[in-house]
């Protein structure tokens, strides 16, 4: 049995060996490792960069009260970004799988087209979902645009689903049966959280309050960005984005309102990216 914490250790070890800076998660709620400023800002502009980190991700609509063996409100990604994308990045990635203990000759490996898009971030990329014996274990993406800006050079993003991969490695079908370490299971660590947050997301969250917060975060984000404080400004973009996800899960967003809210979050993301590029002298100054 390979535990979650052992897998994470190996991931860090492997990618540190490939020259990546090993960063830590960002301390705000978010839906994907891509939203960590470590990725969001670093992919912009010409400076080479390489880092890797664990990112806890919250997706309110995926909550299943701790009862579904594979779907959870909060899971963990291991995010690797390298700019510019190296020529042998796929081979490096496959070596990482072998390093985690997968004998590729004994499994069915496929790179299936899956183009990633995050409308709220004004970001999209081209790539694959990596399938191992039918399980999607990784999203592999060449970033083409982020915050509405074309990216050159191009960053490659490798996102491992830590739980998925760990389940695969241990041939375990139920996420809660994974072991975090030798003494504690994933269920010990996470089931109660899943239950409570599912209740929260689907029925307990205060719609009125969250609606108000969305507007306030949006206003605060714009105010801070217009003062060129792109880092704190972007924090409020992240907060607005998560509030949107909760409201969405809570069933508080109508079809027509949904598009509008997505557009509003995207505007914040695009302005954040712009302010970062302004600070680097890469685009002309303009307030939003």
């Amino acid at each position, binding site marked *: 049995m390979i535990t979650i914490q052992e897998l994470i250790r190996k991931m860090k070890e492997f990618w540190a060996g490939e020259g990546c800076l090993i960063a830590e998660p960002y301390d705000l709620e978010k839906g994907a490792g891509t939203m960590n400023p470590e990725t969001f800002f670093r992919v912009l502009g010409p400076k080479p960069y390489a880092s890797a980190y664990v990112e806890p991700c919250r997706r309110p609509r995926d909550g299943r009260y701790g009862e579904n063996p594979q779907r959870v409100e909060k899971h963990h990604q291991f995010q690797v970004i390298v700019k510019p994308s190296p020529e042998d990045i796929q081979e490096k990635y496959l070596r990482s799988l072998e390093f985690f203990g997968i004998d590729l*000759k004994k*499994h*069915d490996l496929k790179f299936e*087209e899956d183009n990633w898009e995050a409308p709220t971030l004004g970001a999209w990329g*081209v790539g694959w979902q990596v399938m191992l*014996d039918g399980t999607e274990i990784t999203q592999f993406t060449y970033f083409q645009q982020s915050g509405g800006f074309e*990216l*050159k050079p*191009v960053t490659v993003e490798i996102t491992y689903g830590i739980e998925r991969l760990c389940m*695969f490695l241990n041939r375990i079908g139920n996420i809660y049966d994974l072991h975090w370490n030798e003494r504690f299971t994933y269920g010990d660590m996470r089931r109660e959280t899943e239950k409570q947050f599912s209740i929260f997301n689907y029925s307990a969250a205060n719609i009125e309050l969250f609606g108000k917060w969305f507007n306030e975060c949006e206003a605060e984000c714009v105010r801070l960005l217009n003062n060129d404080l792109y880092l704190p400004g972007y924090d409020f973009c992240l907060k607005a984005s998560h509030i949107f996800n909760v409201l969405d899960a809570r069933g508080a967003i109508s079809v027509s309102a949904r598009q509008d809210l997505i557009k509003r979050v995207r505007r914040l993301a695009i302005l954040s990216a712009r302010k970062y590029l302004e600070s680097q002298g890469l685009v002309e100054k303009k307030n939003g």
Partner: protein
Amino acid sequence: MADFIIEIGTEEIPSNMIPALVGELEDKVRARLAEKRIPFEAIKKFGAPRRIGLCIWNIAEKQPDSDETLLGPPASIAMNDNGEWTKAAEGFAKKNGLKLEELKVIEGPKGKVVGAEVQVKGRTAEEILAEVIPAAVDSLYLPKSMKWGDGEHEFVRPVRWVLALLDTKVVPMNIKGVEAGNTTRGHRVFGKEGAVVADPTAYFDTLKHEHVIADIEERRKKILRALGDLAESVDGKWHDDKPETEELLKSVIFLSEFPSVVLGEIPQEFLSLPTPVLSTCLREHQKFFSVYKNGIGSKHEILPYFLAVCDGPRTLGETRTILEGLKNVTIARLQDAKFFYEHDKAVKLEKRLEELKGILYHPKIGTYYDKSRRMERYARELAPFFSIDPDVAAKAALLSKCDLASLLVQEKEFTSLQGVAGGLYAESQGEDPRIARAISEHYQPVMGEDGKASPYSLAVTVADRFDTLIEFFKIKETPTGSKDPFGLRRAGKMVVEILADASLYEGGAKPKVSLEELARRWYGKDCPELLEFLKERLRHFFENAKSPDGKSRFQYDEINAVLATPMNNLIDMGERLSALNAVRQEHREDFDALGVAFKRSRNILKGLPSYRLDPAKFLPENSKEGVCERELHKAYIQIKDKAEEDIARGEYRGALRSIATLRPHVDKFYDEVLVMCDPEGKDPQKTAVQQNRLALLERLTKLFYKIADFAEIVPRES
């Protein structure tokens, strides 16, 4: 003669793009080589997830030499008054590597210039390929392209190696920043990098040694054989004759470089799921084929197995490991599907109607609730034409979109079950089977075991598509050129096919529905654009009709002749067209002549009022004109009643045979009689004669206009 190979090595190209890419690459290279006048025997295209390319067999080693005329500066500058070459001429000679003696004065397109006749040596195949191949690759259409690394190049996926060999020699070229060499890469896991290819003929074997089957057809056959064998091993078959299954096959051919197929089992507990849900889940989530019980018939009963195409050579033990993994994921997916299905089944479809108010159909058109309500009305109004119960048809239409609010259909992988899912829920909730079937089939009516479509399914389908057409024409979002984002042409095609295809209703009631009347009523007023659009769809329908020998059944002018009449009952239009086509073949010359005569009549009658026909006003029989017009009138009277009767009874052949008998009289009339004998209207007596003749022509034209406009018939050259 030499052989050439180009292999562009990439990261995994999306499976659905590879066939188009290699096909276009072949076309572009063919065209460019033709332009360069360099002959070759054959081109073979190949492609797999990590490579696309071409072999060109027996290409000439160089272009043929050619004679060319080089043109330089005007003679007035190039030659002085003494007839000696000037500096300008010397410069031209030097630039082109010519001696002064070779220059002469040539009459160019803009007057006399200095020039020379030279023989141009043909360039070598190597030179031309080095130029043509990268240019062809750069000109490929990429539905979705990307950049990588420093962001300098753009292609469908990053290019990682290029193999370009003319016999044993590397043809130097650069494709998307990668220099060509003489090596390829084998299978990602089972082959090696940098496998040397001796020459183009060795390519496929070299790669096979590295566990890659680059030949598309060979991979296809290997997969087909394995699917067949494994399905047979459990007494089943894998193909259900569905287009989705064909699509899946196409996709798996390009998802593996060395395909092998494994057979896995589905736990019994999931067999309670309806076949469409089960097979869609396996297909859309996992790219698995389902296995069905052997036997003929439209019902496909599923067996508890799946077939998965894997990549790489496999031993039995490895297969077991893989299958265990595949099964785990599959169970999780099926559990989800089962959860959705059971949950949805418990919600009455009618209750979902309210939820449709929250699902937008189109921002300018409204929600699916609005659409359902319109469809309800349309189906009710269509019911009499289909001889079906209006209440049942209306309810089927009203409920047909309710499954859009179900958990199952809202899942990305199950969207293709729209309609089918609703049908299943309706059935399980004890709804009228006619309603359940119509809901299930309203995206695509299906022939039942009796070989007939259900009229309820047809009515709901027409209500659905007609509504789509009406609403999009109202907001002026109509197709232009190749752009048809809302699939209106497809919708129009469906409406026309259902209303025009008599074979759907064999033995049953054929709908007596007027397309023009429906369009007017539902649009709220006349909409000429919509009618014109539907007429084009109907034209395609008639044009695509084939006779048993595989040729087009109808001539274009016959189609035009029938389409010139109002679009009322489309089945009736088809019957008139068949009759015209058949009788015309019996009486070819008569119809050709009548076509000319009717066109003449149409031109004469254009813009004129109707006049009263009075046989007393024909000229007396002692004049040639009088004889002719009286004879024509007599012939007309002789056939008129029977023809009208025939037309009323739908006996179009009889009516058309009658018209054929008119031909000699019509010919004679036009030969001898000047219809417009008083164009200025000066002589009241002559005016009366002229008006009487016009009246006769109008009667004749009108009699047969109920079948077709004969003025559209174009004589055949034979």
